[in-house]
């Protein structure tokens, strides 16, 4: 991905030199033209076209914002309800992610999910120990984490 962005910047500079236009507008024009040509030459590149990856990063960011909002609403509901009938507990979650930064990002997202908080990661980096505010939602939480977060992170790192 970094290689493709560098190539695109290089193409933009080529466009600036060709049109003898050393301004930001010239750079942006060259960048867009370079992006189009990279899109058409994408089968010669080692990795998928980098714009899709940028879209998936934006998607991950939107998931992050949504989960933060939902987490706060659920904490508010629990705290401000007159009776505290919660069942806290710690459950283990087996993750499929392998790289360190992916696991860090996943645990950051889990901590900001409604009602879950990462306690520890096992030494072989396969199991996350998660403290849940309400253990009866844990099954649903595991399903949500697998479906939304892991998929989104795998899309970014692919």
């Amino acid at each position, binding site marked *: 991905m970094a290689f493709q962005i560098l190539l695109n910047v290089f193409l933009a500079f080529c466009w600036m030199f060709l049109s003898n236009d050393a301004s930001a507008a010239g750079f942006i024009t060259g960048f867009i033209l370079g992006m189009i040509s990279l899109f058409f030459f994408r089968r010669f590149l080692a990795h998928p076209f980098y714009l899709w990856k940028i879209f998936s990063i934006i998607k991950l960011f939107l998931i992050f914002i949504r989960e933060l909002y939902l*987490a*706060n609403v659920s*904490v508010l509901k*629990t*705290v401000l309800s007159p009776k*505290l009938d919660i069942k*806290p507990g710690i459950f283990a979650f087996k993750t499929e992610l392998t790289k360190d930064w992916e696991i860090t990002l996943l645990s950051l997202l889990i901590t900001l999910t409604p009602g879950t908080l990462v306690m520890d990661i096992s030494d072989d980096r396969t199991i996350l*120990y998660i403290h849940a505010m309400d*253990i009866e939602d844990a099954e649903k939480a595991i399903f949500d984490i697998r479906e939304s977060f892991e998929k989104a992170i795998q899309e970014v790192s692919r």
Partner: protein
Amino acid sequence: MIVIAKIAVAILILMGALICLAASFGTLRLPDMYTRSHAASKGSTLGVNMILLGVFFFLWFITGEISAKILLGIFFIFITSPVGGHLICRAAYNSGVKLDERSVQDDYNGIRNFVIKRKEDSYL
């Protein structure tokens, strides 16, 4: 236009302050250390970020200055606050703080073997 901007800024800052207040209620009401950490790490993140966002929009709309420092502050709080909650919880568990008696499940029990055995009359 200015009036609308001012109303939006006021709503943002008031919501942030209310969320911070609710998070502090949570740290008072919830039974044990771990559930308190839930309230603290989530509530304060969004509360402080909303206040900062309100200040950012105030500076942008009223004085016309885009303050990148505030955006950086929002970003850093997003990153550091969950990590803080995680580390505090982990340190508490490994130094022997008990879960609340309402807890129904503890998969983490016995994973780390350096749990410090406290005396009965200890403050923990």
